[in-house]
């Protein structure tokens, strides 16, 4: 198992970091979070053309760069650190992986090059108003309609669902229940019969939409009814990527808190000289580093084809969620009153911490999942 990054990976991180520090300062985050689309098409173009980031994990035969999850995790970590507002998580982490896991060779050859080049943005719609990220909770029905299928039902909490060019929809074959009948479909974002509603989110830096499907014609992605494994795999991959995004945000919060505590004076001394503050910061570091280890480990395990990926994904998601929200709350606490203001930046990360904590299932859900999946050799 890989426990340190290679020299090339370090260099890659530096390139990504420089780009993001430049393109996603908090002034930009604040500007974009007030918009409905929630991203800057110019930056998306640069990110796609100059750094080719959407192509990262797409295999070379589908027009990608063919890197692994360790590299993807580096990108996610840096995006989490910069709080980049862009449809990267939706299009690359969720949709591209769903297509890789579920699609036929022909569909991969058709869709992946477009995602890899950044020319289209896609997303994945799994969850419904139940708020559960799992197969058994899927109710949206796929009904046969002549030779094809039509979708009937509703999806909720769809990341960038209102702006995506293509929507990968997880549905169940009409009449199926539980784990069976799980199917992936591809739907055009502008397909007739879809009603898209932008949701009012606590975290304005990650846009969520509700999508209502009323007899929408849809192309099956892969074999209808055989999507269970692909869904589980995609959700594990997404959890690992999100965990790495979360530790990037946690790192930002810890660093900015420590820096603030070194300059803020009270009682004639910097507050960072009080053990009450120092010990809180030491605990932040320990939470961060442990969560980082879990997130890195899960990403490396994915690349190495480790059979324990499902357990490791849930461990990483739970650890990162707990660390991020705890560090975010402590960060506001150390900042004191100023940390509760709109103008100070901490709340932007706090809100991302909150949305990431819940997205893909909260820490308690993942701990339960982890216990169900626990085995020897972890």
């Amino acid at each position, binding site marked *: 198992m890989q*426990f*340190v990054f290679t020299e090339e990976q370090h260099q890659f991180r530096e390139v990504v970091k420089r780009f993001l520090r430049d393109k996603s300062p908090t002034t930009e985050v604040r500007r974009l979070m007030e918009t409905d689309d929630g991203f800057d098409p110019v930056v998306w173009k640069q990110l796609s053309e100059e750094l080719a980031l959407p192509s990262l994990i797409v295999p070379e035969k589908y027009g990608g760069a063919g890197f692994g999850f360790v590299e993807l995790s580096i990108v996610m970590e840096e995006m989490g650190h910069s709080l980049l507002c862009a449809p990267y998580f939706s299009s690359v982490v969720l949709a591209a992986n769903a297509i890789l896991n579920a699609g036929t060779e022909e569909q991969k050859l058709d869709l992946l090059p477009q995602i890899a080049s950044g020319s289209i943005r896609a997303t994945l719609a799994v969850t419904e108003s139940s708020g559960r990220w799992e197969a058994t909770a899927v109710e949206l029905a796929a009904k046969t309609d002549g030779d094809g299928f039509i979708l009937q039902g509703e999806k909720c909490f769809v990341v960038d669902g209102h702006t995506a060019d293509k929507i990968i929809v997880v549905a169940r074959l009409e009449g199926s229940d539980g784990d069976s009948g799980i199917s992936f479909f591809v739907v055009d974002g502008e397909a007739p019969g879809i009603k898209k509603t932008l949701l009012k989110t606590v975290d304005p830096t990650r846009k969520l939409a509700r999508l209502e499907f009323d007899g929408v014609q849809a192309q099956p992605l892969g074999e209808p009814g055989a999507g269970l494994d692909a869904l589980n795999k995609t959700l594990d991959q997404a959890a690992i990527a999100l965990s790495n995004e979360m530790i990037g945000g946690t790192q930002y919060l810890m660093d900015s808190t*420590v820096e603030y*505590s*070194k300059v803020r004076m009270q009682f004639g*001394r*910097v507050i*960072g*000289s*009080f*053990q009450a*503050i*120092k*010990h809180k*910061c*030491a*605990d932040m*570091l*320990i939470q961060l*580093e*442990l*969560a*980082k*280890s*879990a997130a*890195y*480990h899960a990403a490396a395990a994915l690349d190495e084809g480790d059979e324990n990926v499902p357990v490791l994904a849930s*461990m990483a998601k*739970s*650890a990162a969620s707990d660390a991020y929200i705890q560090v975010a709350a402590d960060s506001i606490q150390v900042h004191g009153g100023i940390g509760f203001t709109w103008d100070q930046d901490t709340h932007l990360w706090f809100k991302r911490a909150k949305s990431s904590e819940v997205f893909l299932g909260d820490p*308690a859900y993942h*701990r*339960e999942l*982890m*216990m169900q999946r*626990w085995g020897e050799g*972890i």
Partner: protein
Amino acid sequence: MSDLTAVKEEVRTWLQENWDDSLSLVEWRNRLADSGWGVPDWPRQWYGRDLPVAILPEIEEEFAEINAIGVARSGIRMLAAATILEHGSDMHKKEFLRRILTGEDTWCQLFSEPGSGSDLAGATTRADFDGENWIINGQKLWTTSAHHADYGLLLARTDWDVPKHQGLTYFILDMTQPGVDVHQVKQMNGHASFNQVFITDATIAPQHRVDEEGAGWRVAMTTLAHERRNADGMNRLNRDSGLPGAIYEEERKEVATVMEPYKWYPQRAGRVDLVMPRAQQTGRIEDAGIRQEIAKLLIMSKSAEWTARRARAAQEQGMPQGPEGSLGKLSASNVARQASRVHTLISGADALLTGSDGAMDGLIAEVLVSVPAVSIAGGTDEIQRNIISERVLGMEKEPRFDSGPFKDVPRNVI
């Protein structure tokens, strides 16, 4: 590489010609000391061969190959040896090193005191020179093995008019003299692994001072650095050979004596390994609340393990170690505390019982009453957090009130 092969060849040949399990342990180890193969990384002049530390495992392999016993390494004696090698005079080396290697002498470390725990440099045991000898008076605490030690590494105050770190001097104390009175300290878990040492007008000859007067803190740092390093190798060196024969029996007794105080140490770390088996045996694994707590523990414990591996991997590849290298001690405390909570949840009412009435014949109860030691011994959690925040995060120290002459520093009255 060829050097290594040559060294391995040389030690193999030497062992073939010299290893003799009919010797007594001391006879054999004297032979080792004369050959330099007992401590090959030590200087040639002092029982070694000036070989790099990195090849020690290769040499140990040759020993293991024919079940040859090594020099005495367990306990405080190796810390004494390392300190004497670095700071001692030739006379010290001549007088003490050989009998350390043969295991004839046992050592202990007289640093901590009732009045100075975390604040080790606040020691108030005094050493006064009477024109002929140093006269020692004071109390030491947490001294492992003091009850059977021949010598003690002593940190004592020789100057009360300078700041505290500058007034300490390092000595070698003969533990067998009348002025040294050792009492075992019974702990809350019923074991008595440590001692309190009362020192009343004990004497130390001037030549048994180590390094300069006032250099005690610096010398003590050497001892402590080796203590941390040794902690890693402890398990490997104290494995029971399991072999028949008088010399192995002697070694077994030596190790058993040294390891006696540490027998509850696995319990103080929380026994995470027992959590899943216990949860399954008791059926508590079905309880959703307990499952959550077990999961938290396993995540914490595994992440801590991976964090240590990240640090080690970086070190092995010669990369700068990040903050992950400084977190082990505090992580271990967090893991132990959560493990203790989980064992309590799993045991339910059985957590009320101990000894033969308790779960696993009292083992679980021993976990519950031993875990509080982890966050104190070897640097409290609070000291760890200070170290992390100051050295890793670069935060300021608290203002101090002990930087003037030590005699004016407020301290405990004992």
